[in-house]
């Protein structure tokens, strides 16, 4: 018994020394698997070469595509025990949850000090800002409005040019279906993928300018374009696999890989997945922006911010400054399979697909994704996700449109 107590005491002492270590830096994220973790560790290594004295504590929480980590983070922030810096999606996921309640410190000074305000697209900085102050550093960028397709099937159905309108797209889906393929694969067992599809259609119908104004309260949700987006979705659903609600997004992407489905609308993490399955971008699979969204870039971005009362504020600022550098961004992103948020990064480090995406990122309008936390508060996106989930089954355009208006009204958006 005595021995157990001594061991416990030693452990406790060791732990408290570790926790109280003066020169530490605690980084919170949900990057625990695949390329993400490797990328994060590569960042840590690089950070170490600049600041060898700072001890990094990797407080990553695994599981649930970040939902577990988000729950842990909320508890820590509520309990007044914030990490030094944490991963969060750009936009409302940070603003609504932590900035508006006053838990974050603005970091505009970092951008000004380094003179890098023009090194990030203005639209992106707008998304991570609240009332004129910037609150986080975007590290990576994914594009959500991309169609990935099987090139062999494309050839078989005679697709020479990538479709840019719904009419063309539907025609190819129809041809694919006639040849016995699934036109558009969908895997909405976890519900979010159907909203992922719908938000791209919404963007196509509204156009990037109007779409972005929705979230600023400058245009109304009561717009025929949104209703029309629902009927476009209804048309697309005719070409979807019947077992969509039994599949995840990986399963749906796999259907394209296995030659069972012609195409799939997904964020470009699907590109990374297809590559791990052994396909080469531009050879076995091609891609194009969701029809009608050629001049828009639906953004999914991970950022890091500075919580108030961070235990090692100085180190956290060093970390954030480090993340803004081209070197750090070019270290992390090729491993994770995403593009850097800086527009002056080294393109030669990225594959053909990512170069295409980088080009669009610096030239097209950037629009925040709803389901990936950037455009609207979580309460809005989960409610909309439920409404779209119903719509996929019932396919009642009027009813779904009415529900969207209610949800928008509930969350304080314009609906007149």
């Amino acid at each position, binding site marked *: 018994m005595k021995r157990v107590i001594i061991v416990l005491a030693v452990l406790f002492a060791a732990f408290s020394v570790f926790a109280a270590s003066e020169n530490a830096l605690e980084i919170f994220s949900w990057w625990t698997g695949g390329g993400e973790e490797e990328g994060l560790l590569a960042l840590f290594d690089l950070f170490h070469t600049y600041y060898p004295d700072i001890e990094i504590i990797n407080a990553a929480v695994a599981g649930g595509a970040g939902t577990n980590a988000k729950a842990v983070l*909320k508890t820590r922030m509520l309990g007044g025990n914030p990490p030094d810096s944490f991963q969060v999606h750009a936009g409302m996921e940070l603003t609504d949850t932590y900035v508006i309640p006053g838990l974050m410190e603005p970091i505009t000074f970092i951008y000004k000090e380094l003179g890098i305000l023009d090194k990030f697209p203005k639209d992106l900085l707008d998304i991570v800002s609240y009332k004129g102050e910037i609150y986080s550093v975007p590290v990576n960028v994914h594009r959500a409005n991309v169609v990935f397709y099987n090139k062999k099937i494309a050839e078989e159905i005679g697709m020479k040019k990538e479709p840019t309108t719904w009419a063309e797209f539907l025609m190819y889906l129809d041809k694919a279906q006639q040849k016995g393929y699934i036109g558009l694969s969908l895997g*909405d*067992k976890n519900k979010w993928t159907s909203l992922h599809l719908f938000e791209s259609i919404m963007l196509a119908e509204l156009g990037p300018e109007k779409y972005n104004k929705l979230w600023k309260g400058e245009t109304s949700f009561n717009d025929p374009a949104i209703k029309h987006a629902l009927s476009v979705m209804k048309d697309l659903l005719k070409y979807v696999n019947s077992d969509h609600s039994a599949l995840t997004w990986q399963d749906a992407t796999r259907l394209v890989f296995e030659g069972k489905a012609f195409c799939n609308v997904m964020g470009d993490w699907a590109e990374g997945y297809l590559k791990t399955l052994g396909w080469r971008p531009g050879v076995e699979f091609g891609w194009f922006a969701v029809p009608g969204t050629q001049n828009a870039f639906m953004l999914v971005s991970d950022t890091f911010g500075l919580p108030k009362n961070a235990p090692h504020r100085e180190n956290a600022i060093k970390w954030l400054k480090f993340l803004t550098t081209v070197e750090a961004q070019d270290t992390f992103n090729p491993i994770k399979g995403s593009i850097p948020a800086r527009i002056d990064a080294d393109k030669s480090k990225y594959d053909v697909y990512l170069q295409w995406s980088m080009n669009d990122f610096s030239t097209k309008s950037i629009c925040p994704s709803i389901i990936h936390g950037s455009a609207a508060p*979580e309460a809005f996106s989960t409610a909309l996700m439920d409404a779209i*989930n119903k719509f996929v089954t019932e396919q009642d355009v009027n009813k779904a449109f009415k529900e969207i208006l209610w949800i928008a009204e509930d969350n304080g958006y314009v609906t007149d």
Partner: protein
Amino acid sequence: MRKKNLVIGISVVAPSIIAIAIFVYGFITWTLRVSFSNWNSFSALLRGEYKFVGLRNYIRLFQDTRFQTDLWNTLFFTLFFLFGTIALGIIMAILVDKGLKGSRLFQNLFLFPMAISFVVTGTVWSWIFAPGNLPNNPQGLNLLFQKLGLDNLMWGWYTSTDSLGHFNLALIPVIIAAVWQLSGYTMAMYLAGLRGIPNDIIEAAKVDGASEWKIFWRVKMPLLTPITLSALIILGHISLKIFDLVFAMTGSGPNFVTDVPAIYMFELTFRSNRYAMGSAIAIIMLLFVAIVIVPYLFSSMRGEKR
């Protein structure tokens, strides 16, 4: 001496009583308090001002079509799950109790599924019932049907949005998985009950010329009533608060055909930050379980007094 014993007794029990008071009853009270509040966003929670809104969260829930679906799903899931596990449990117990050759092996075999976690059961059964892209590309069970030439048995299983009245047919595969998992456990309970019936009663019945069937219904079953009651309570509360099996197997399903209150509670609380609404669901679920358990507690307490 007596007093000393009392002091020792209290001090031994006190830690667990205090822990239960805080972590069970304290938190139930807290959840009840939250369910009457306006804490439906993270910032409202952070501000920490308690605003009493009465039954607003409850009213909103009962008007919510998703929650209505959840209630129907719970009702039908519970009914079929209880019926399935108990019926199958009795049948397996009788077969094992007959002491036929190899019955020991089967006794263990039937019990094994209980040792698996619901998440594993859910994942495996979701593969078995995965419909595939019908009609050309079936999977799992549907593929088997196709190979056997039973094409018209192929069905969407848990992706089906058909319903009979309020009963969503997509629940059938989930019920099968749940019954598979827990009927072995019910069998074990009945087996213990059957083996506890004194042989002389049965002998007496036999001497009186009762048939096997009559012995079972008139002698054994009445003696097994307490077992049935405990099984109903244990399985009933599992089914009323089921989460992991459904979450791993089907999720909410298309148009919420396989959604249950626990999943909705989880999503409202941890995805939408609607803490007050989530707490309201928690309280409603607690009431359901209480409706099942409280009468049982009363009757068993009365029984003890006697």
